[in-house]
């Protein structure tokens, strides 16, 4: 090995040291709480961050470590910390650098969990957020104030699938010395490595396309290693002595991995949203086929877009790869291999037709997850957003006839045949 390994190779090998004891080809599952120290000096060295090693599985675990280094490698980051869920990743990443009085500028079009965290939970601890229209890049800059410490967004937004102009937003962040944190769950590093476009921190719900099989919940924070935390005095949690570890200065000692180390030293230790080793093992199995699956997700998405656009019962179809979508040009730039496998479409006949469609498909699973190997659909107006009136729905970018589709890996002809059942029922309701 003399040149950097490529993506597909990394997705199989990165982070895994071949088990030196038995040569086991798969990473062993270290289902253990704690680790026996060979001597007291080693023990104190590990606790004092003088050497790597494992002490307690809430902080580090060898199986989880393989996954962390694999995700870091695929994203091109300097380090990663895995968490019990994607939301835990977001929470731990934000609270590692923000404190009372600090401010976030975030996209208004994001997964409900992200919105709720910033709108309801973080303000209780004095961290406030200004939400801005993700398609209005300048709005991010306008919203930055003296206490702004973070810009947050999803590369592919939710539910409108608006794409951030990441390079422009990263330039704003760099200009104001504010790191840009990107939730890359919908794109995965296979479709876009956001660090290459200037993002600084990457968040994943590994539960979705990364794991890919709907088998395990997990999250990851990737440290891009590309923030000069010391440039201003704005990030004391990174640049000031940290008392619990004998006043360690993480920025001086860990440089490009200072942020990840803060998460490990603080969030993993004090909050303990740790990923289980068995889940890490399952997620590793999923990542081994990430590019194969993503290629198939994209091919099926393309075929279904053509099918839906030509269907008489379809009122509208939205996907960033369609010229009519407002993010069409940005999709071409940032997501040339495909703009994700989430598609929204309207069923002619409104709310009742939408419900009829959902109730009459059999292969597609009616549930609220995305990124499974199986095709998933949901009708927001009668489920996730059923308690919201039409005006509020509209404000959230949801229409009454809207179906959200997470395209799976089935034979696309079978998905189409299944949808035909739904459209026939919808047509009866629509009259």
């Amino acid at each position, binding site marked *: 090995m*003399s040149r*950097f390994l490529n993506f597909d190779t990394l997705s199989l090998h990165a982070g895994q040291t071949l088990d030196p004891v038995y040569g086991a080809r798969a990473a062993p599952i270290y289902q253990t709480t704690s680790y026996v120290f060979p001597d007291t000096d080693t023990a104190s060295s590990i606790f004092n961050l003088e050497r*790597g090693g494992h002490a307690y599985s809430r902080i580090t675990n060898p199986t989880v470590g393989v996954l962390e280094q694999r995700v870091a490698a695929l994203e091109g980051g300097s380090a990663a910390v895995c968490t019990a869920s994607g939301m835990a990743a977001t929470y731990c990443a934000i609270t590692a650098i923000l404190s009372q009085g600090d401010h976030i500028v975030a996209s208004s079009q994001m997964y409900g969990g992200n919105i709720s965290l910033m709108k309801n939970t973080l303000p209780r601890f004095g961290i406030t957020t200004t939400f801005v229209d993700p398609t209005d890049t300048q709005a991010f800059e306008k919203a930055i104030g003296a206490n702004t410490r973070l810009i947050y967004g999803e590369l592919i937004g939710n539910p409108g699938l608006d794409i951030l102009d990441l390079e422009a937003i990263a330039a704003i962040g760099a200009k104001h010395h504010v790191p840009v944190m990107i939730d890359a769950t919908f794109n995965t590093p296979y479709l876009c490595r956001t660090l290459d476009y200037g993002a600084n921190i990457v968040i994943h719900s590994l539960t979705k396309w990364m794991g890919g099989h709907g088998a395990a919940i997990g999250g990851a924070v990737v440290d891009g290693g590309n923030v000069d935390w010391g440039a201003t005095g704005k990030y004391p949690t990174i640049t000031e002595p940290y008392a619990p570890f004998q006043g360690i200065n993480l920025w001086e000692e860990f440089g490009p991995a200072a942020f990840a180390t803060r998460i490990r030293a603080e969030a993993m230790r004090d909050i303990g949203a740790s990923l289980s080793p068995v889940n890490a093992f399952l997620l590793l199995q999923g990542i081994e086929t990430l590019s194969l699956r993503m290629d198939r997700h994209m091919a099926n998405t393309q075929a279904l877009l053509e099918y839906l656009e030509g269907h008489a019962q379809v009122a509208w179809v939205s996907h960033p790869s369609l010229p009519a979508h407002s993010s069409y040009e940005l999709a071409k730039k940032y997501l040339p291999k495909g703009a994700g496998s989430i598609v929204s479409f309207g069923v002619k006949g409104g709310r009742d037709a939408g419900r009829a469609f959902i109730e009459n498909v059999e292969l597609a699973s009616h549930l609220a997850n995305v990124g499974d190997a199986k095709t998933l659909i949901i009708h927001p107006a009668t489920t996730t957003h059923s308690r919201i009136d039409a005006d509020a729905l509209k404000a959230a970018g949801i229409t009454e006839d809207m179906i959200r589709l997470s395209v799976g890996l089935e034979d696309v002809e079978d998905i189409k045949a299944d949808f035909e059942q739904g459209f026939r029922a919808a047509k009866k309701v629509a009259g």
Partner: protein
Amino acid sequence: MEFEVGGKSVFATTGGKPFDANKPVVVFLHGSGFDHTIWGLHSRFFAFRGYSVLVPDLPGHTHSEGPPLESIEAMADWLNDCIEALGAKDVSVVAHSQGCLVALEYASRFPKALRSVSFITSGLATPVNPALIEAAEQDPEAAIAMMLGWGFGPAGHLHQGPIPGNSMVGGGRKVMRGNTPAALATDLKACDAYRNGRKAAQAITAPTQVLIAGKDRMAPAKATAELVEHLREPEVTVIAESGHILPQEAPDRCRMLLRDFIFRHNPATKIAA
């Protein structure tokens, strides 16, 4: 910490303890295009065992004021200035790659405070491929890829790291990006031009230690053999599985060897006694 040498600001980490010139001192020197972060774990280890630790960024690298120094000899002078400015009395030098050339020059010319030298993955000279120097100036990403691609052994290429979850190649790439093109190109030219290695090695009187990486593709084996040949009774260890960036690829082994050597030749206990 920050201090001034020749009117310019120097940044150095001290391993998590304040610098105290009355303690024995361990100085860690980084290689071309790198900075203090390569020594992260090692510096903290010594700082918490009775030593004062100094891990400077070379001028023009990461946090130290520029411009980068253009010759190995100048870097050795600068190192001596740093040590004198801080008033350090019992100094062990630990050097990696290009840092070894600086250490050769420093140890041969400024023996007064020197108690030991540890050379890690370098020989007497470091001839640099002109294509690499050109890339450092014209296409920094290509130069970084060449250096880290050749520099790291398998563990680096597989994105492992001394701390669980950290990728040493990922971190190295970020550090080097901050030091291109000027610092890296200047470093490489200085390495290439250095010719005084043999004489310097012969002149060193302090105890020396040489750590060789079995999978090193950066340091020419011949130059390493010559270093061993011309030093006075060096303690030589080969770490078979490591690549060139040994302090990160084999951190535990490296730390143990440094500990055994430095504890013997520059003991921290004599202060207490």
